[in-house]
């Protein structure tokens, strides 16, 4: 019987190597898999390239991973947030690299990585400094930039419900990048607040089909980043 569960977050992130590319779901705190990120900090992998829309807040979750010195490079669209000082400090002192990507281009590059499309053309950013030096081409009389797919070794995803096959449902705007990242990573790891048997999720409503998921760990009451930050929690 197919059963993709692992016992705990530690086992969920086992095997990630130094230098790996890790996609982390979430837009701000919505969909941020904090327990998996903390397990990744404990694991100790270094020199990571991390793909996320933002760079975390406070000193928990993604911000804590960055503060731990695990991240060599961030690929994101918006590395500033309220209560975000960890990334800005490292960036200003030249200790972390940033690849800034327009948000829709970031999403599409991740989808392309998951869909076996190595490159595509987009009008976004044409004429701006983010397109400088980039290969461009006209379609229908309009300039477009060639963008390349993004893939990852590992994706860390937060879901509301998973079944044992890895079929996923999300919570509202916590969905954001997660279904795309699940497609684009060699190993996709999901923390789910609820884990159910196959057949308990309506097949018409599945958002991420199980084929994109490798490991499921039950995290029944996931922390909210804003709660932790408000309480002054730091990790570890």
């Amino acid at each position, binding site marked *: 019987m197919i059963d993709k569960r692992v016992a705990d977050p530690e086992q969920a992130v086992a095997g990630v190597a130094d230098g790996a590319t890790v996609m982390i779901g979430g*837009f701000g705190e919505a969909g941020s898999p904090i327990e998996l990120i903390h397990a990744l900090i404990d694991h100790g992998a270094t020199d990571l390239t991390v793909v996320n829309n933002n760079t975390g807040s406070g000193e928990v979750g993604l911000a804590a991973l960055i503060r731990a010195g695990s991240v060599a490079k961030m690929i994101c*669209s*918006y590395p500033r947030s309220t209560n975000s000082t960890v990334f800005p400090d490292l960036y200003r002192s030249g200790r972390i690299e*940033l690849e800034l990507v327009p*948000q829709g281009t970031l999403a599409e590059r991740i989808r392309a990585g998951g869909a076996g499309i190595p490159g595509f053309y987009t009008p976004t950013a044409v*004429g701006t*400094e983010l397109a400088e030096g980039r290969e461009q081409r006209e379609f229908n009389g309009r300039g477009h930039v060639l963008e390349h797919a993004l893939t990852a070794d590992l994706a860390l995803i937060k879901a509301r419900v998973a079944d044992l096959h890895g079929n996923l449902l999300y919570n509202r705007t916590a*969905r954001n990048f997660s279904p795309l990242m699940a497609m684009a990573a060699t190993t996709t790891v999901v923390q789910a607040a609820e884990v159910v048997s196959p057949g308990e999720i309506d097949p018409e409503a599945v958002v991420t089909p199980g084929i994109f998921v490798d490991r499921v760990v039950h995290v029944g009451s996931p922390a909210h980043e804003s709660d932790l930050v408000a309480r002054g929690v730091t990790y570890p």
Partner: protein
Amino acid sequence: MTSAPVGLSREQMAARAARDIADGSYVNLGIGMPEMIAQFIPEGCEVILHTENGLLGMGPSPDDGYGDPELINAGKRQVTALPGASYFHHADSFAMIRGGHLNLCVLGALEVAANGDLANWSTGGDSIPAVGGAMDLVSGVKAVYVMTSHCTRDGTPKLVESCTYPLTGVGVVDRIYTDLAVVDIGPDGFEVVDLTAGVSFDEVAALTAGPIRDARSTEVER
């Protein structure tokens, strides 16, 4: 230098912009001042709000204690979902944007040039660069409106001959709502299509740093 004319408040600017949004439009409102437009959509006009982090049919902030930290808008503020709403992932959300399915977005600005160039994502220099969805919105949405004070706090015009800050998009702006006027981008530069009560065209022109003409006579009566 004469004293600046007294313009609209932020709320009045939002209300002025809201008047021009067509019934049934799909609209993305930028973080900050543009968000306020949602409060001023006229009775009988139904506008469906898109937030690029994956929701169509966004409603107002939740009542205290009823929020979900995972139901947020692009500004990461808690919101609600109205009947008829839908959630979707980021690639679908930006397919709506890039594919030209949204009727309108309203954004803030650092500068707007007379040819419609927009600068609103970076002040250059030492700040941490952060672009978000702004470049996607201006390159994809059918109509791009800007809502901004006519000048900076120190009185420097934000409607300029050409932008000095890094561009968000080239020739993308269709219309600008300021505290002093409603200004379209025409073939020859800025075109004033409406003036705030008590403000003259000459006053607006004096506070604008690019070619500007009075186009009020050509505007269709409301």
